[in-house]
């Protein structure tokens, strides 16, 4: 089997994904994507139900949320039962949370734990462009030599990394200031959630441990949150008293170890720079080997 026989297939692949991308961008421009047709509302957590020790993390922290229906003007009360979008991992009474649903289908509501920018629905066409581009790079690499693979794959990623570097540097400074200005309070591990999954093929069992911490802010807000890092021996942490550092205005940003968080922030930036260096070097090596 020669590579020549695959050329048609690769070009067909590129044409198909190119078509998908064009249709996707067209729909986005016309405002017809599902993301653009989504109704976005602000809800408020009315009640936080305490997780049961030993239970599952699936579905996140159980909450009751109310929001005002823009059509009827009435207050609607819902819960995060079943598949309801993003998992809520930090909750307190009064927290604002995004509730979204497709137009004309309020019963298909979903929550968003983090406030995101309105989506233009270009995720699918972007993925289609990437698949077509990857196929083209492979085709060129096989025909013209493997250095093209280094250029084609590492070059754009290096450029993307460089483009995002100033933002990462800018974000680090306020992040460090936030860490330094955090309030400190006492908290308690009120539950350790345990999810056991069994691999159907080899019967391998894997267990996910998710401790849940509860703490009160200086203003008296009782926060319940999943706490998956900086806690030693999480499986036996039930009932343990811990020190919690959190930002006063947004308790979603909390940590049990400020120093580790500071270190992690530095490492993140270093890793970012290292990745750029590695990718750029690979692309340059590719050019040199042509």
């Amino acid at each position: 089997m020669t590579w020549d026989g695959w050329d048609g297939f690769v070009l067909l692949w590129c044409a198909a994904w190119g078509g998908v991308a064009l249709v996707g961008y067209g729909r986005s421009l016309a405002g017809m994507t599902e993301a653009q047709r989504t109704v976005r509302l602000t809800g408020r957590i009315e009640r936080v139900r305490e997780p049961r020790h030993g239970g599952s993390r699936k579905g996140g922290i159980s909450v009751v949320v109310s929001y005002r229906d823009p059509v009827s003007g009435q207050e609607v009360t819902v819960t995060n039962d079943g598949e309801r979008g993003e998992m809520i991992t930090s909750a307190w009474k009064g927290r604002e949370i995004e509730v979204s649903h497709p137009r004309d289908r309020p019963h298909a509501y979903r929550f968003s734990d983090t406030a995101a920018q309105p989506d233009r629905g270009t995720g699918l066409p972007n993925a289609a462009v990437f698949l077509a581009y990857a196929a083209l790079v492979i085709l060129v690499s096989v025909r013209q030599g493997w250095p093209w693979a280094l250029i084609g794959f590492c070059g754009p990623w290096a450029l993307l990394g460089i483009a995002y570097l100033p933002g990462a540097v800018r974000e680090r400074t306020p992040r460090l200031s936030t860490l330094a200005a955090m309030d400190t309070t006492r908290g308690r591990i009120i539950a350790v959630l345990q999810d056991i999954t069994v691999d159907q093929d080899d019967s391998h069992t894997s267990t996910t441990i998710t401790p849940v911490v509860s703490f009160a802010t200086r203003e008296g807000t009782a926060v319940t949150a999943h706490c998956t890092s900086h806690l030693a021996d999480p499986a036996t942490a039930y009932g343990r008293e811990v020190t919690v550092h959190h930002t006063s205005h947004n308790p979603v940003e909390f940590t049990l170890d400020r120093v580790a968080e500071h270190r992690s922030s530095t490492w993140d930036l270093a890793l970012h720079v290292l990745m750029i260096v590695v990718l750029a070097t690979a692309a340059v090596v590719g050019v040199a080997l042509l």
Partner: protein
Amino acid sequence: MTITTGSPPTHDTPADLARGLVTGGVIGASVTAFVSGCVIEKTSLIVMGLLIAAVYALAFFLATLPRRAREAAVAPRTALAMIESLEAVGGESSDVPVQFDLTVAPDDSPAYRVEVRQDVNLVELADYRPRGIVVVEYPPDRPWKARIVRRPTPEWEQRAAGARLDSAPGPVMRSDPVQGWAGGLLTLLGLLLGTAAVLVPYRADLFGADASRAAPRPSVSSSSSTTTVTSATGTITLGPGRSMLGQNELRSSVESLTRGHRRQALSVVVQDRMLTVVFSPTGVRSTGFDPRSLPFDRVQPLVEEATTTLGVGSPHSWQLTADGLTGSVTLRIVVTGAAGTGTLEADGQGKVTRRSSS
């Protein structure tokens, strides 16, 4: 919007059976085409295997789109239900599948019985007891698709806490239709038909190649030529009075040696009445070339050129060797005469690249 309540499917409908047959056929055909294409190194067959699966998946997606959109547009209703009985039906993870027999009591319609299966976390399993009250949701047009709400709103939680329900008489609706043996059998039949639909047209390529690799073919002799094909080589010796330089002799000889399989050759050696093809070992392709791609029309002029221009005197014999060891096909013609030996080399298109004599 008017919502019509249907009746639950109790067994596989003809449409389900037909879909099972077609799905089995598509799986059989696509997998067989893909694997066969890899075995006989036929790109079109590999692509066909992938396309069959992709087109069927797309057609299935588009065909079910209206139904899914219709179902998604229906707002579910909430009701109280009483657990008649429950049974954990296995599971090794922290969520176990539980079979519930429920009496669902909607506010605005008669109570009904339904059997549903739902995963319940082990820690929460004790919350569900016979005669216990739970909150359920169901699509009004398909009440048998009821689902227990684990996290009801405070209003429904309060209603469930103080509610007392009576059992409804049967029949019990089931959310999952009973899988009959006919459905599985038809899917299997489709799988076999799909596999056969690909294997039968390509049986010669698939099994002919295997047969030639597995065991050497016996020699076939005729009045004009002798053919011997083994797993490693193929040789044809022409009968007296014929030459490989004759009209179409070389081309037809090569084709007769490679008929039924598409193996690459390591080298091709041609003498006046004899052709030998040394095949690449199975699975090794990097150094081989397709012997049918030789420039057959150029062989006779090249031999003639070698015998007349290299100054070897009256020639006694010639031999053409073609190999692809350097990546591209090279033809080497060695002529031996009274005055010495001459070599002429040409590329894969039959263009002379080097001449030498000694």
